[in-house]
């Protein structure tokens, strides 16, 4: 029997979408659905975990095992799920506040453990759901509801941070270019290890429509001249000031993943001595 061909439609759900018209996150949702179809992941084998924020609502909009969790905790929940069921495809998603503020600790350590999940951050440089406060990626000096005198903080650079921490796949996409983003997600999903995709996904309500134009004007698609296996090259790209890099910035293979390490430890334990049932452990208490 021919396998049934899956299309993006197969990944739509009946959950009503609450995003504002024109929100960048629509583009990300389309890209995710198209990527899932391209990868032909049966919906029951796909897990989508998000935190809290406008962007995190996305977990309900993809036909999969979806989990819209709590603020900042998408990564450890996704990691636990992958550890439990390594045969499943696990995507994590959320916003810049979710991932780079309240969830930073988990971002750091998920990279360190190289959990085999794809993490899509819809970076809109603002707290959308709570209606317009400054976020860790809001530019210095910008006026937001919680920085009426201008943002006193300097923004965090998530790409540079991920690179420094040893992430094995780092990419940046734009919600205004769904095809390109879809490809980044497909590649990231195929990558064995933590695939981090920062997506410029404008909040039209609290940052304005012109944010799309900013990315269109300053976005530079990385071509063959960029070697993503070179840490130095990647580093250079993450330090761009005006230009916005789009594409795979860094990609290396062969770093053991969280679930591979767990299996290794199981083999190591077995080599030290076979334990058949829990009752056999009684002798250690003798």
């Amino acid at each position, binding site marked *: 029997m021919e396998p049934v061909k899956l299309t993006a439609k197969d990944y739509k*759900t*009946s*959950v*009503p979408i609450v995003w504002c018209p024109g929100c960048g996150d629509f583009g990300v949702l389309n890209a995710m659905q198209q990527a899932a179809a391209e990868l032909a992941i*049966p*919906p*029951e*084998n*796909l*897990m989508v*975990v998000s935190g*809290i924020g406008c962007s995190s609502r996305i*977990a*309900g909009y993809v*036909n*999969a*095992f*979806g*989990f*819209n*969790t*709590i603020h900042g*905790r998408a990564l*450890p*929940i*996704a*990691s*636990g*799920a*992958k*550890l*439990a*069921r390594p*045969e*499943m495809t696990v995507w994590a998603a959320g916003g810049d506040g979710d991932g780079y503020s309240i969830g930073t*600790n*988990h971002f*750091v*350590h998920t990279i360190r*453990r190289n959990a085999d999940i794809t993490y899509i951050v819809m970076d809109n440089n603002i707290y959308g759901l709570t209606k317009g406060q400054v976020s860790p990626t809001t530019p210095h000096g910008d006026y937001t509801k919680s920085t009426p005198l201008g943002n006193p903080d300097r923004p965090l650079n998530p790409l540079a941070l991920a690179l420094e921490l040893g992430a094995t796949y780092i990419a940046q996409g734009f919600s205004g270019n769904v095809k390109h983003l879809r490809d980044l997600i497909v590649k990231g999903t195929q990558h064995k290890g933590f695939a981090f995709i920062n997506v410029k996904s404008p909040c039209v309500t609290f940052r304005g429509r012109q944010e799309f134009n900013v990315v269109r004007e300053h976005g530079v698609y990385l071509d063959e001249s960029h070697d993503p296996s070179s840490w130095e090259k990647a580093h250079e790209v993450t330090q761009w000031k005006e230009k916005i890099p789009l594409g795979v910035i860094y990609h290396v293979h062969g770093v053991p993943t*969280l*679930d591979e390490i*767990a299996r290794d*430890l*199981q083999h*190591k*334990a*077995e080599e030290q*001595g*076979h*334990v058949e049932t*829990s*009752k056999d*452990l*009684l002798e250690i*208490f*003798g």
Partner: protein
Amino acid sequence: MRDVTLAIAGSGGDGVITAGDFIVQAAARKGLNAFMLKSYGPQIRGGESSARIRISDRPIYSQGDFVDFLVVFSWKDFARFSDEIKLRKGAVVLYDEADSTPPEEFPIAAELGAELIAVPFKKMAAEEIKVPLTKNMVALGVIAALLHLPLDGIKDAVMKKFGKRKPEAAQVNIEAIDLGKGWVEKNLPDGTQIVLEAEGTGEPKLVMTGDDAVAYGALHAGVKVFAGYPITPASPILEFLSKWLPHFGGAVVQTEDEIAAITYAIGASWAGKQAMTASSGPGVALKLEALGLAAIAEIPLVVVNVQRVGPSTGIPSKSEQADLFQAVGGTPGDVPRVVLAPSDVEDNFQVAIEAFYIAEKYQIPVVILSDQFLGERSETIDPDVLFARKRVIARQLAKPSDLKEYKRYKLTDTGVSPMTVPGMKGGQYITSGLEHYEDGRPTSSGTMHQIMSEKRARKLPLIAEESGFVRVYGDEDAELAVLAWGSSKGAVREAVERARAEGIKVKAIVPQLIYPVPEKKLDAALKGVKRAVVVELSFGAQFYRFLRAYYDGLPKETYSYARSGANPLLVSEVLEAIKEHAGAMNAPQEA
């Protein structure tokens, strides 16, 4: 004596705990009952430490109020334990003659009439064994000879610990033990006034700590993913499972913090594997938001809290029962959850199994409230009783018929809805921390919130009905009862037995399930009781106030005996409380 309590006090480097472990293991091999409490000062290494061991041929419920036999390597270190180590009149005290404290400055009261014996522990180890570190083993030989502990059992235990990996170390230790024994034969041929006269059954027992027991119970129950962050006194659970869970196809992650630990567990359980996390009060505080997530998303989860003295960092190495309110209510929103309280080491094992049973059957988070006093003590236990309870169940999966228009949160009579796991075709659904409809779609409808709150709460009376027996000790028909929970059981049970031996009619009532309150079982236990005393180690009397708030069946005359923790509950203080209330009940009524 058939019931001896001995204590060894010294500095970290003195090997006090190791010596204590060997004594307990030797007792276990002979089929004796033993109970060991370790205590440490605040220093990380090298600070004072003490091991307090009670051995008897009768069941042991508590650490024993008074010490019969004391070994002191350093008086200065011993003085730091003066709160905890109280000597019985006529106790035997062995001290290292190397300690320069003059006898008139020994920190023990003269009126105790203790039998003081100077022993050259350090000298023998340094000069004859040539390994000063074996001082504890020399002491072990002396203790064994004087108390009539089974020397062969001690040697067996030493061989088991070192035999395979370090045979030379085993040899040296055994020489040191023999040296101590020889010293007694030469210098104290008549022994001392305290001798253990208990005969073991000959049936070897196991030695387990409460933390290991809860971890082992979880393993037996089928835990596959454990995530934790180190904290005293819960770390041994992380350590035990790190060693053994990989043998059973499971995984352990030491996460970046406690929030990650509980969320790893939630993710794993949502994905279909039994999962657990463990911490102590401060770490559990960090987990509470996620506990609410497990509750509203109805994800099976087991959370262990090995309570320590709070608030905040409090006294990390000591015990208290003051996280009860946190366990029962410390989460935003109306959070249906289950709180189970183990009461001794064996019970830690059983409660872990029960916790997984309830979590999986009812899709609800279960909190196990252990404490330092339970977690870090060692007890001998009967291997046969461990596996008596057959309550191990796997994930209860939705049936194929449930998958047609699958509703993850389908309203049912029991409140339990069909649950799928990834890989089940047609079983995918959206879940969240948001209130939702039956199919998981988020809603902000107040009506739905009421309906779903009722659905989730429907599980609670069923759990109260099915699980968590209430233990009753003493006179069935007593009009006076002591109500206690968790680790207080030991001292309370012993106090009740002593009171009864003195002619007072009294019983102890100890629920294993704290929340939901097992009302019917408590009603039955309290039948005919006119006066109750609620005994606990919580300055704020949390258990007393909890019962007042959640349970209508308390006798009109219900009193509280509550004090802050750190110092273990004494049998004598509970006995005094019993006597006081028994006296008040029998006093002539005023006209």
